[in-house]
């Protein structure tokens, strides 16, 4: 068996119930997609946490860089008009 360090890393996403989005729960090493799916089932759904599993090769994820935080996210700070808080909600509208 090849050493575990040779196995690629996979990110695991679990959907806890129908109609809810898959949520990232962790990562694991596995030799293939099928092995990763089995391992995810055995590690992350032991207490009935999910109805669906995705495994994604970690290498396939393109991530933003922490160094780019300012140019990416600062500009949204002072644009309060993007929040839907500038109109009156009619009293007839419930449960908003």
């Amino acid at each position, binding site marked *: *068996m*090849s050493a*575990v360090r040779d196995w690629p890393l996979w990110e695991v996403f679990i959907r806890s119930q129908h109609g809810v989005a898959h949520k990232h729960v962790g990562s*694991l*090493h*596995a*030799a*293939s997609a*099928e*092995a990763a799916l*089995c*391992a995810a*089932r*055995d*590690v992350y759904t*032991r207490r009935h946490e999910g109805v669906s599993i995705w495994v994604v090769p970690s290498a396939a994820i393109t991530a933003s860089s922490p160094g780019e935080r300012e140019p990416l996210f600062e500009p949204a700070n002072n644009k309060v008009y993007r929040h839907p808080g500038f109109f009156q909600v009619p009293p007839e509208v419930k449960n908003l």
Partner: protein
Amino acid sequence: MFDIALFMGDTDLILSQRLGEWCGHAPVLEEDLALANTALDLLGQARLWLSLAGELEGRGRSEDDLAFLSDAGEFRNLLLVEQPNGDYAQTMLRQYFFDTWHQLELARLGQAAGRVAEIAAKAATENAYHVRRSRDWVFQMGDGTEESHSRAQAAADRLWPYAGEMFHGDSGPLRAPWIEEVRATFAQATLEVPAATWAHRGGRDGIHTEALGHLLAEMQFLQRAYPGARW
């Protein structure tokens, strides 16, 4: 029916104990958990079968009496499942041979009457996942590195003579579909299906390999040393 319940219960129990031996020793954490999951599935099935066996026998023996106070000669499990864990290839090939037979056997027992069919149906759901997992390991090891391939082949060759016993009596017709499944899997895993046709017998008659005694010495130690001890 007593014979079937005892045979299924003992076989599940002994394999569960074997898999439990890996707990804390498996090559990676994911496998440690997966083997423990499988072991606990099988232990749950063993409890159902042995409880049923105790009732059918009608001598007041509980599942615990059958599991912890029977001597080796009273166990009816398959010789395959008492074989030592060996390396990971041996553990997973043993599992694959067992899981694929188990799936067929549970489908067959699902046609029986009453409790036997109920237990078989519950067990079949759990087992469907076991098959998927152990089959994938056969692919991975057979079609993996040179070393994993040779270990998987060695494990298949060593365990093959213990497979024949699974197709005794009413289970005979399961042999053809089982061989077909193994051939397809081995072809994809680039493994050779062993040619030997000779098979060990004895598990169903209580004639076991020496491996069972060692396993029972560990499994039954507590109840033997402290009779009636409880958590």
